[in-house]
């Protein structure tokens, strides 16, 4: 029951991962209900602030965009990639658990991959120690 209150925010690119989530739904692949999806125009739109801010309220974050080479805007995800590498490393540096913020590439055709990734990520976040919401939750 405890996990029911947990929340995972998923920032999904409109052109691929969001459509992948849609396909998962249409195909009736199950994925955990406490993943809350926020549609973004491209993984390149993910300001680091989105991720840091989401962690004030949620227990974890998933960011997914088009596979390299498949970005609707050609290079949005390629530029984002460098940023993601730094964000992940910075969060690890300040002591965040490995699984709390995760990134992946998921295409519009990969409904099953979306369901798998969502299940895996949510499961890992559920199993982490209670998150403190950057010290907001006592």
């Amino acid at each position, binding site marked *: 029951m405890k996990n029911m209150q947990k929340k995972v925010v998923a920032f999904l690119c409109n052109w691929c991962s969001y459509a992948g989530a849609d396909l998962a739904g249409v195909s009736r692949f199950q994925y955990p209900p406490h993943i809350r999806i926020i549609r973004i125009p491209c993984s390149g739109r993910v*300001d*680091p*602030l989105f991720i*840091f*801010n989401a962690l*004030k309220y949620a227990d974890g974050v998933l960011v997914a965009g088009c*596979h*390299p080479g498949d970005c609707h805007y050609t*290079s949005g995800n*390629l*530029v984002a*990639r*460098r*940023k*993601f*590498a*730094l*964000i*992940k*490393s*910075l*969060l*690890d*540096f*300040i*002591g*965040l*658990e490995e699984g709390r913020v*995760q*990134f*992946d*590439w998921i295409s519009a055709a990969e409904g099953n991959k979306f369901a798998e*990734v969502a299940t*895996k*990520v949510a499961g890992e976040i559920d199993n982490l120690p209670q998150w403190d*919401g*950057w*010290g*907001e939750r006592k």
Partner: protein
Amino acid sequence: MTVLENIKAKAKELLEAKEVEVVIGFAQGTLPGKCTPYFARTTEEVERFVWQDGCNLNLANYLSKFSGKVGIIAKGCDTRSIINLIKENQVNRERIYIIGANCPSMGSCHNCRHPQGVIADFYAEQVQLNNQDDFSDVEAFEELLSEERKNYFYQEMSKCIRCYACRNVCPACYCKECFVEENLPCWLGKTTDLADNIIFHLTRTMHVAGRCIDCGACVRACPMEVNLSLLNRKLLKDIQELFNTEPGLSLEAEPVLNEYKEDDPQPFLIGGEESV
């Protein structure tokens, strides 16, 4: 001639010839050992210039305050910030005259790799040899347990009073409207609660990533002695390791987060590199 004499002679020459309207440098501060930015507009005012330990602010920040042609006395980090500002179209190369000199405050930033100017129109002294930065401070922190790292980070973040001196003094932070002040939408809570402080600092660090040149101006400006350097330098180390580059060294190279390579490393992916 000493460095200072060279600097003064060049500054006078530029002002007399009306090549520049002002020369930005340092004068003696009101506290012993402190120097303050100084804007010389006449040859008499040039006499007040000093070049000594304590001249450690990043003067590049002042370039955008003038509309005419400006001379600037620049040490290593100033010139690296200037390079970034030129590349980001914040400063016009034609409108500045750079008097390069080695940083006289060596010792205040141990590890500094570039005490000498990276670009200059005139060097007031011989170029000095580079030091090596081994990022040993960052590495020592990486060695700690994650819980220790988190505790230290939270403790540093709780000290911040959100005066934004660190942002104001930073030459990489030139946005006319900063996310910290925006209200619609309100990207960031305005309180000094731990969470708001943390979100501010993580975002600040990311916003200057690839443009921060570790001049330390933010650290010196901070009244609460928040260890901003640790975060800035962590990303400098990552940028070096992941993308094999150092910000602010070349006018030609794109800022590291503005470009990409097909085979950039993807250590952040679920399952690591291979999962693509």
